[in-house]
């Protein structure tokens, strides 16, 4: 019993004593790179091509949101993301701005899909005697 307790303690101390770089290496690759998180700001990119890419992404998102609005089915999240994208572009964080604009467009596409499917599905929910 005593021996096993000592073994457990040694294992614990060994793990806690690992250098920081080894612990970091054990983190998932995606979390390190920040590729899966919208809250992790990537490196600012001020290159002219990135600016053009952002404008393209933004225009595409705005056009898709407008299509959703024609169907009265815009999601407020798209609006919020477009605002955040604009703020990020002003701050010079163009990679992040592109990511946010793309997400806004993607949500607007889902909103349009929702409106299209609801054109008929709503009838199934109507109460009947």
């Amino acid at each position, binding site marked *: 019993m005593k021996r096993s307790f000592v073994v457990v303690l040694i294992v614990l101390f060994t793990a806690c004593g690992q250098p920081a770089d080894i612990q970091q290496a054990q983190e998932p690759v995606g979390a390190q790179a920040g590729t899966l998180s919208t809250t992790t700001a990537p490196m600012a990119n001020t290159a002219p091509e990135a600016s053009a890419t952002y404008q393209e992404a933004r225009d595409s998102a705005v056009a898709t949101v407008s299509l959703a609005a024609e169907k009265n089915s815009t*999601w*407020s999240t798209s*609006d919020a993301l477009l605002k955040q994208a604009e703020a990020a572009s002003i701050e010079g964080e163009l990679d992040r701005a592109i990511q946010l604009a793309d997400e806004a467009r993607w949500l607007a596409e*889902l909103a349009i899909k929702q409106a299209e499917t609801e054109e008929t599905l*709503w009838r199934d*929910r*109507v*109460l009947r*005697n």
Partner: protein
Amino acid sequence: MLFPLRAPQKCLEPKNKENVQVIKVFSFLVLIISQLMAWSALAEPEEDRQAMLSFYEKHFPNVEFQEFANGVYAFDEIARQQWLEIEDFPPYEIAVDEGEAYFNNRFSNGNSYADCFENEGQGVRQNYPYFDTNVGKVITIELAINQCREKNSEKPLPYGKGELAAISSYMAYTSRGNTIDVKVPTNNPAALAAFESGKQFYYSRRGQLNFACSSCHIQAVGLSIRADPLSTTVGQVTHFPAYRARWGEMVTLQRRFAECNFQVRARPLALQSDQYRNLEYFLSFMSNGFELNGPASRR
């Protein structure tokens, strides 16, 4: 040419008396079927209302019919006690007084709101919204107030709160106890279309959270979202405008629609848009037979 053309008249000409008889019978059947289709379309609003009432009666067997006009306070005893305490010093009283003053103020041309409404605007709230057959649109009481202003060369008021909500509160107050009697003209396809549009809005999922109005108020009625119990569809319109404690001010029904839409992460529509007016039309018809008890206080 592969197929020789025949004169159109010849195609339509009956060949003999038997054909004439067949055409007559066919025409009669078409007439009967179209009448039946029209009748079924007209009967639908009332069928919808009966189906909804029946659903809630089964869901809340111990709640009396008129109690549904009190929203969640019809079945949430603790919330009801708090509400009754609040009613001792009703927070909407100030709005009613202000609304009365605004209502009685004369426009610059000497006319007043009383000149625009039946019975000088006293006790008429139960007839709104109605379908205006001349313009082919649903007219809500807030819209009628602004139409009155514009008719008298005054600027329309912002919808949702403030002066307009106060005037609407006063008009609701003078109508307390009157029974909601919203009509869907059975001989008007445009009115039926407006009703249908409101119904579609009510049952359609929207927003990122993918909720329809019916998701909360039918499917999950009586359950709670966080600390807030979900009210029944019937009786929802009876108490507006309402003093909303969360905002500390009077709120019109359509501002509440906008809040609901925002809560499911849908972009709210413009107040008094066609869609919201049609929704109000549908909801108000569902509450036919309930007594008005607005303005009221809500959490």
